[in-house]
């Protein structure tokens, strides 16, 4: 060992050299591993980062599909909108640009200071990013801005689509509105369908049919260097060859609804005097929805990207919950539910419709007294009379005899407790109370008295206006329960049908024809009986309407004549009216629901009448043909 350095007696140079060699080899091993890690393991990710460096992508937004009513009238459509942008890096004459913008946008001094700050603020690569100065400028300003763009550098005008809802507030819940995606939605969007400034369906059908309506954005790509200058030759051309350079945007599909704009307007006008509620019109023959709306409404044109703080506050602070779609939200049905009790009793063979039953002002059951809405009672009435006068004790007795679970069985045949199939706005299935339901949810468990409350649509029963419409539709058409159908078909821009939504029976009442007829006859009496009819305000001059009032108690403390005196909105009764017409051959079902609206007979029934009359006059003469048929001798 010590043969190294002949003139030195020191030893260990070889050993130390070997140690240094080990250190060097070790350090290089680390470098090799790191190099391999970056190039072979992280390679794909870093290649993507490299591509992001030199690729600029211009998104070509897809045109969203149009939503039409049944007659091809527009409910939601895209129109081009012009936005003004400034790219700081391209600005050569800032003063000139600002002076020009002042003219185009009619800005005041403060706006000008802010504008200057926004243009001067970005640093580095951010200066190449265009800043939006103003959105959706009108045509006249576009012309002025175009002229300005010719004079100064850095200004650009970009076209995008702005969603427009010509009907505004009318039927806004059904059609819905658009909004920007949230951060978590963007994160989950692995296919890259959306960008931060995309607009997607946020409510109503816009949301339900987002994937159909949206289409697919296209893009154009080009190569830039670090300064943002476009590179079409040499390396840029070769780099471009490896990536997809463009993809045309694909337009979304159009949706044709079964709903009629004119019916929507009729419903809107008919509800004008009431703050909160819903109205539904369906064709009982196939479950097709002709009109459906909820009150109060909101302006989808504002909500789709131009929401002002005032409008937002107005909606947020309204006690009437404008953003809640009441047509598919479940409430106490009150007496409209009596059709379930009546049919159940007939089917179970415990009721002879013509047999009068004593129906006084109150009914003792267990240790509780069940009152009728009319304190003096109705005397002895048959089914027609009981339905017409809405005699509560008559139905308490039926409820007591049937029991809550039997009532529930029939309620389900009417479609209660199931979603009616519109698929929008958190559509509720409502509640069909059973013994098990009360055991689980009621303090003190199930008591037999609950069957009595259930029989008149109180207790824990909850139904949505749309469910009531479909249930009355089943009575009107002789026993078939349909799914709510609001979309007729989906088609491409050039008219090719992509999918068709046919009407779909989901069940039947499983009831004897005579029993259904008996209930319908009673409903006809409830409108037309000269003495007893609680729904007489729904009667129309030219034909016969059948229907049922409902005045659902919301607060127990309030009773009898005291009800109408209640001032607090939230304590007032819900007012319902469910009707079909014409009685002889029903073509439409109308359900009016007035949230805390007062009385079914005094408030909801006249609204229903106005709807039926307007429908007859403006949409389809439902009574004339019937009248002719009746005139024919049999």
């Amino acid at each position, binding site marked *: 060992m010590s*043969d*190294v*350095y*002949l*003139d*030195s*007696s*020191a*030893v*260990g*140079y*070889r050993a*130390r*050299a070997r*140690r*240094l*060699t080990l250190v*060097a*080899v070790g*350090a*290089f091993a*680390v*470098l*090799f591993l*790191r*190099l*391999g890690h*970056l*190039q*072979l393991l*992280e*390679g794909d*990710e*870093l*290649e993507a*980062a*490299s*591509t992001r*460096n*030199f690729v600029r992508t211009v998104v070509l937004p897809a045109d969203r599909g149009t939503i039409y009513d049944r007659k091809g009238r527009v409910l939601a459509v895209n129109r081009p909108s012009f936005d003004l942008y400034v790219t700081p890096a391209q600005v050569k004459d800032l003063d000139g640009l600002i002076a020009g913008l002042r003219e185009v946008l009619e800005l005041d001094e403060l706006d000008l200071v802010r504008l200057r700050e926004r243009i001067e603020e970005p640093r*580095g690569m951010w200066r190449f990013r265009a800043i939006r100065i103003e959105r959706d400028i009108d045509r006249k300003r576009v012309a002025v801005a175009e002229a300005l763009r010719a004079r100064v550098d850095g200004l650009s005008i970009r076209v995008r689509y702005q969603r427009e809802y010509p009907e505004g507030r009318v039927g806004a819940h059904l059609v819905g509105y658009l909004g920007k995606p949230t951060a978590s939605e963007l994160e989950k969007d692995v296919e890259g369908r959306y960008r931060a400034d995309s607009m997607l369906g946020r409510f109503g059908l816009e949301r339900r049919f987002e994937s159909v309506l949206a289409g697919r954005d296209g893009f154009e790509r080009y*190569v*830039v*260097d*670090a*300064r943002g200058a476009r*590179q079409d030759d*040499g*390396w*840029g051309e*070769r*780099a471009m060859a490896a990536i997809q350079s463009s993809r045309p945007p694909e337009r979304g599909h159009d949706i044709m609804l079964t709903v009629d704009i004119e019916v929507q307007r009729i419903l809107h006008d008919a509800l004008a005097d009431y703050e909160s509620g819903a109205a539904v019109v369906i064709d009982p023959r196939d479950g097709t929805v002709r009109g459906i709306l909820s009150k109060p409404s909101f302006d989808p044109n504002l909500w789709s990207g131009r929401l002002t703080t005032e409008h937002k506050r107005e909606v947020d602070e309204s006690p009437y919950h404008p953003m809640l779609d009441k047509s598919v939200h479940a409430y106490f049905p009150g007496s409209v539910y009596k059709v379930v009790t009546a049919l159940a009793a007939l089917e179970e063979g415990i009721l002879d419709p013509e047999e009068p039953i004593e129906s006084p002002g109150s009914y003792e059951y267990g240790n509780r007294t069940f009152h009728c809405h009319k304190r003096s009672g109705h005397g002895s009435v048959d089914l027609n009379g009981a339905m017409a006068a809405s005699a509560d004790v008559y139905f308490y007795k039926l409820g007591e005899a049937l029991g809550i679970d039997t009532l529930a069985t029939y309620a389900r045949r009417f479609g209660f407790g199931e979603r009616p199939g519109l698929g929008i706005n958190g559509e509720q299935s409502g509640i069909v109370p059973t013994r098990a339901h009360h055991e689980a949810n009621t303090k003190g468990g199930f008591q037999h008295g609950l069957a009595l409350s259930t029989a008149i649509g109180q207790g824990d029963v909850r139904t949505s206006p749309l469910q009531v419409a479909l249930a009355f539709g089943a009575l009107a058409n002789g026993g078939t329960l349909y799914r709510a159908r609001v979309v007729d078909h989906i088609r491409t821009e050039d008219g090719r049908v992509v999918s068709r939504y046919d009407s779909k029976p989901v069940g039947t009442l499983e009831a004897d024809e005579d029993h259904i007829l008996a209930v319908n006859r009673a409903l006809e009496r409830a409108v037309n009986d000269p003495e007893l009819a609680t729904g007489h305000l729904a009667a129309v001059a030219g034909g016969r309407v059948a229907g049922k009032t409902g005045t659902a108690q919301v607060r127990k403390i309030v009773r009898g004549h005291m009800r109408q005196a209640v001032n607090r909105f939230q304590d007032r009764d819900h007012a319902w009216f469910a009707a079909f017409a014409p009685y002889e051959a029903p073509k439409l079902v109308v359900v009016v629901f007035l949230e805390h609206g007062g009385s079914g007979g005094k408030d909801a029934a006249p609204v229903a009448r106005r709807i039926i009359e307007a429908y007859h006059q403006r949409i389809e003469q439902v009574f004339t043909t019937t009248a002719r048929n009746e005139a024919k001798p049999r």
Partner: protein
Amino acid sequence: MTRAAAAVGRIDWTVVGLVVVLGAVSVVNLHSTSMATGTTVYLKHLYWLVIGLGVMAAVAAIDYRNLQRMAPVFYGGVVLLLALVLAVGKEVNGSRRWLDLGFVGFQPSELAKLAIILTLASWFQRVPRPGGYTLRDLIPVGLLLGVPMFLVLQEPDLGHTLMLLFIGGSMLAYERFEKRAMLSVLLVTVLSAPLIWSFVLRDYQKDRVLTLLDGKADMHGAGWHARQARVAVGSGGLVGKGHGDGTQVAGGFLPENHTDFVFAHLAEEHGFLGAALVLGIYLFLILAALRSAVQARDKFGGHVAVGVGALIFWHVVMNIGMVLNMLPVTGVTLPLMSYGGTSVLTVMAALGLLLNINLRRTVF
């Protein structure tokens, strides 16, 4: 057979061959930069390499024992130049590192590395301590190392200051020290670290260290450079994007791609294969230097060989460590690959010393 012919036969042609290969790779690599920027850096670099080979041959030709006698004069001259650059150097980006010689710029800090190698080697030769060097011996060694380090730090040039420290330290590691001396060095290193952090390092230098530790980095300045280097390296993959098609270089996203970040450039265009080849050449050169050290005729030769090996080692580790985002951003060049005349000539001269020592070894 003449003596000259015998000498030619004894030259380590493998080292010469690898230097030529490395030079060729670097010229090809810089040709890509030239295409992107429309300059002729690759030609200039080629000229410097040719001149460098001449310098290498010249340094190899003179018997290194003559160089040993010249060492103190060389050291004194370099210290003067370092002082001169502080006074009249050309200021670039806030630091004075260059002496403007009219036709060409020149960095005395590059020469300082050679001066340290020769001076320390010569000191170890002249002061033999068969029982190991003592604590007191560290004082002259510390001074010889400290004066040029201090001057370079004033430029400021942290990269080269560290380089001098690391080269000197590596040479010390080749010597035997008493335990007391070793422990003291260790203690001083540990204790001085926070002081150096607080009083010696400038804010931008601290930022670079923090940027590295931080991981995600501020995306401006040095952090952005480091990130782009990482992107360039990683996007090269196994075989690279091809000559002239490195988008990071051609698009100007990778800064300093012909100087400090030249390795990222190579890795982007020629992938893991190209980058690993160059890394392998460096490792071979370093191992050759350490082998020459133990075969050297005397202690001076042994230490010079270790110093040359250390010079290449630390340059490569600090530069590639920086490119691969493992070490902070310092302006340390990659030997022969980075464009720059002074750097090329210094490395060539150092390799000349290595050939010189190898040529005059006693063990065959």
